[in-house]
């Protein structure tokens, strides 16, 4: 019912753009708040329509999935959650999908954050992943199968010291359990004992710092999920092999979910994402058509 109404309204909104174009050409561009309204509608209605769209998996995402597939059960994976709730719509689905994948493949997961909010987001992701039936059946134990080391201040300096000794930066884990009492950390001293680093990053400190220190200085392997704002900035690292696989923004998350076959939030959002892009493109085109017509008139 809701989705039918939403679909009809969506067509109405689409058609009304023609009127907007007419007004724009005539030199009476619509007011800012009307543009706001359009954006609100072109995101709300597609969400209510509840449709999905097919996402082709791109090479950058596939590279990360390949790297994960190469890891054997029991591999030690460091998941660094370096973001806050502001970027959660983009990064949290990746975090949940990654946790599901890691737990299903019996990786030992070590969670930490260079942003104080990160470990809290990780807790939410783990909680959600644990609801999966297959994972729940495994009866995973905190401290043995996974651990949350919490946050430490010092940004890139934290990574620098983890290069020689994790314990120095995390004498206690998030639940105040001493490092040496955690079975999972028994034979982990520094990056040389970690098989893969998965970093979710919304800025600084984030993927760039992990690459510069953990990868370039200490020889670790790192794959990352980034907000779309940051993703273009790390592409050179992808080509040089400093970064192993990249999930960029919501579409990267949806592709990741598709590639590892864990349908999640990003997949349900991608349709709304698509329509909102179409709206922005339409607005840019309309603005520019008006711009060229007025410029021609001025010249004539």
């Amino acid at each position, binding site marked *: 019912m*809701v989705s039918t109404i939403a679909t009809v309204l969506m067509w109405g909104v689409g058609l009304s753009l023609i009127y907007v174009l007419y007004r724009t050409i005539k030199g009476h561009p619509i007011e800012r708040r009307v543009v706001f309204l359009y954006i*609100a509608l072109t995101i709300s209605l597609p969400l209510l329509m509840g449709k999905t769209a097919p996402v082709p998996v791109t090479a950058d995402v596939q590279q990360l999935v390949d790297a994960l597939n190469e890891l054997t059960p029991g591999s030690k994976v460091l998941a660094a959650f370096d973001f806050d709730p502001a970027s959660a*719509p983009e990064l949290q689905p990746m975090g949940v999908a990654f946790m599901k994948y890691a737990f299903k493949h019996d990786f030992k997961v070590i969670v930490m954050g260079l942003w*104080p909010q990160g470990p809290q987001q990780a807790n939410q992701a783990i909680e959600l992943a644990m609801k999966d039936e297959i994972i729940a059946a495994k009866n995973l134990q905190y401290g043995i199968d996974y651990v949350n080391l919490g946050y430490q201040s010092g940004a890139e300096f934290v990574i620098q010291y983890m290069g020689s000794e994790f314990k120095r930066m995390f004498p206690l884990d998030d639940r105040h359990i001493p490092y040496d009492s955690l079975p999972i950390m028994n034979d982990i001293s520094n990056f040389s004992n970690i098989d893969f680093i998965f970093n979710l990053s919304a800025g600084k400190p984030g993927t760039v710092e992990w690459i510069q220190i953990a990868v370039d200085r200490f020889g670790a392997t790192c794959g990352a999920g980034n907000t779309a704002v940051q993703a273009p900035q790390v592409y050179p690292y992808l080509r040089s092999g400093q970064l192993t696989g990249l999930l960029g923004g919501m579409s990267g998350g949806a592709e990741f979910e598709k590639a590892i076959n864990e349908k999640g939030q990003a997949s349900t959002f991608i349709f709304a*994402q698509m329509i909102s*892009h179409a709206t922005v493109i339409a607005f840019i085109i309309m603005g520019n058509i008006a711009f060229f017509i007025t410029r021609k008139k001025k010249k004539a």
Partner: protein
Amino acid sequence: MELLGIWVAALLTLGIFSFLYKDNPVYKICESIFIGVSAGYWAIANFFDALHKKFWIGVFPTDGSDPDYFLWFGALLGVLMLMRLSSKIGWIARWPLAFIVGATAGLYMMLYFVSNAMNQVSSTMRDVIVVNSDTQLIIWGETVGSILIVIGVVSGLVYFFFSKEHKGIFGRTARVGIWFLMITFGAHFGYTVMSRMSLLIGRIDFLFRDWLHLLK
């Protein structure tokens, strides 16, 4: 509590969005709550995760290991930092600041030089003709791409070269450089739009799903 929480969250969300209509007291109240809670959150996280975990446990170990006396110097510098609040002895806060600036400068100098300069130069310096190892045929897409990368990096650097006027062949190279930069910014632009829209989708999804239960 959960239900109350969702209502609080929804009202705060709408309160911030009210700025879109115009700047108003409701927005300013929500914003003030944001500033206060955010500062409080950071303070608590840094108290437990950094000061307690790193400093307190370090100097008063619980597992019988030797206390690390060097940490007291760090705490001393930290306390000096707080002196900034006073206008009389605020100058002493420059000591810990000088330490942080120096340490960051030393670390960054090598980090950026290695990861962002040397290793990028190395990755650009490749055989530009990419051949499929099985069929021995040239892969044209990647070959053209590799050549473009060399041209793009060199011409981009030429554009950011300030000791010579952009004339003649140098000027034309710089012009190519700016085209590459513009495509770079264009891609950034597209990705930024994607990012911003995602965040709004996340918010509207919260309103529809958790608050209004329009979505399941």
